């Protein structure tokens, strides 16, 4: 697998080219569970202790805080599931993606596909997209500009070859 950067890589097997990319996530499921439940135990343990003594107003704040923590960890979990896969096999180019709650799949005819990488807008990342039949699909969300340019070159070469 050719590594474009730590977040994405391309692979060629038996004539088919595929590119996989996903964001860097170092939090494992076990670490997430340990983090969340240790804080739940600590916060609610303390809050329930004070509640038993009659000082119950600590409890709602603990609940709100743990709610915010749960939302944060859930967001990370969603990000972890993000991916992009681009496969060129014979005459077909298949794009599959999941970004946040949006996921999709598109199959294109290789002969009509062309790749464009626009780095001309100052202050914006390079815009790398695959176009066919008037439709444009952005690729390389999790890549740096350098890696997007590299991917654009690789894709152009693969589509021509």
């Amino acid at each position: 697998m050719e590594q474009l950067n730590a977040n994405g890589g391309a692979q060629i097997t038996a004539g088919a080219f595929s590119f996989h990319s996903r964001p860097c996530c170092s939090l494992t499921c076990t670490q997430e569970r340990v983090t969340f439940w240790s804080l739940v135990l600590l916060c609610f343990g303390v809050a329930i202790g004070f509640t038993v003594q009659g000082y119950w107003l600590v409890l709602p704040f603990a609940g709100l805080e743990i709610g915010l923590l749960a939302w944060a960890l859930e967001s990370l979990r969603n990000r972890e599931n993000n991916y992009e896969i681009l496969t060129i096999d014979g005459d077909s180019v298949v794009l599959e993606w999941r970004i946040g709650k949006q996921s999709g799949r598109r199959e294109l005819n290789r002969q009509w596909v062309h790749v464009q990488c626009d780095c001309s807008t100052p202050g914006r990342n390079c815009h790398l997209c695959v176009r066919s039949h008037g439709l444009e699909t952005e690729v390389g969300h999790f890549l740096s500009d350098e890696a997007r340019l590299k991917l654009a070159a690789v894709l152009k070469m693969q589509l021509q070859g």
Partner: protein
Amino acid sequence: MSDAAHAHDDHGHHAHPTGMMRWLTTTNHKDIGSLYLFFALFMLFVAGSMALLIRAELFQPGLQLVHPDFFNQLTTMHGLIMIFGVIMPAFSGFANWQVPLMLGAPDMAFPRMNNWAFWLLPVAGFFLLVSFWLPGGAVAGGWTMYPPLFIQGGISYDLTILAVHIMGLSSIMGSINIITTILNMRAPGLTLMKMPLFVWTWLITAYLLIATMPVLAGAVTMLLTDRNFGTHFFNAAGGGDPVMFQHIFWFFAHPEVYILILPAFGIVSQVIPTFARKPLFGYASMVYATASIAVLSFIVWAHHMFTVGMPVTAQLFFMFSTMLIAVPTGVKVFNWVATMWKGSMTFETPMLFAIAFVCLFTIGGFSGLVLAIAPVDIQLHDTYYVVAHFHYVLVSGALFAIFAGIYYWLPKWTGYMYNETLGKWHFWLSVIGMNIVFFPMHFLGLAGMPRRIPDYALQFTEFNQIATVGAFIFGFSQLILLIVVMKAIKGGEKATAQVWEGAEGLEWTVPSPAPYHTFETAPVVK
């Protein structure tokens, strides 16, 4: 990968706004780090001016400059602002700047929440400061907000409760951001036990903040309902228990003390190996010692309230558990000294502040041990001995570590070396000034001078005069820091990427100044 019709993931893709809008809307961790640090520097001068006014009043016995009630307002606000407006934001500034750089992450996990966490702080600071101009003046019952005084005050007390809530919310958002960033955004290969110690100390600090903030929020809300809604949580006349507030408050506030010092340990653990040109001695033991201190911080709170009356067994428990904290702290001090031992040491300003930290924080630790002894504490409670103790911990501890961190990372932030001569002037005047202010306070306390009193008996005059002279030396020497920072921002000798010969870590692999966007491609750590 998405259709053109879909919304783009646009974080960091737009042109940067300029002027005020850049700072108001920024989600960049470096910008937000700078905002935290400038806010802390501004508040340092605000709360420092209050300290100078306090010391000016105490230069002579009798009442010279300020009304006693205003004196109490000054001591209260000095404490609140220094803790919540200076030390905590300064460490948050370091965390914002350094944690992503040290982890090889492009930014914090939740950049927009990061922006909110910062911009809540000036609002809270405004509420605190504006209370001086409200009827009855600012809060005057001490930063600990003890009832019944706190229940009886004017409108500024409600405003202070609101400010504390806002600062608490800011801390919680910051902590969640830091925990998620550290756990989820480490570069491939950067395992937990390979993380720089500064990152470890912040991870543990964030845990402490999350564990204790609901307690503070609950405590001040109960004060608010006692004041305005007829509840009697802490009102003895209605069957409430004012002493219970002290338990709740210190259950929050003792871990808070470690929230103020653990990141300082982290900074010093980065600085000393760099200038000793040796790896940190006992890295794993430093991590475990930090975690032990955090755990112990939850079971020692009542040593702040030995005088309120508690069973002898409880006194013994809190006395011995407090003394136990000396063990992991001793491990840390030993490791710092062992790191320096036979090192190829040089003494640039960050290292000088780090060495001063080790020596003077240890003095603060020892006076803490003295205060941990229940029968001694009963004698020394609310005297200047306590003031001396916590200033040795928070000034020569937390603040000196902040200074060390500023000098250490300033070239990385600005791209220019700071003026070493001015830095050394700042160091020596600070160290000498600080000791002149706070060391005599040990003697004043042992002789029985009470704290938070604008007047005192004649026999305390000399030591108070010495302390006041020291305070002005220390206070005005901080202007040198301001000059050093401004000069480094404007220009000077170009800094290299590594800056310091012995510096190691991912943050030193990026150019100086660190580009606006760093590590968009995650580095691989071997």
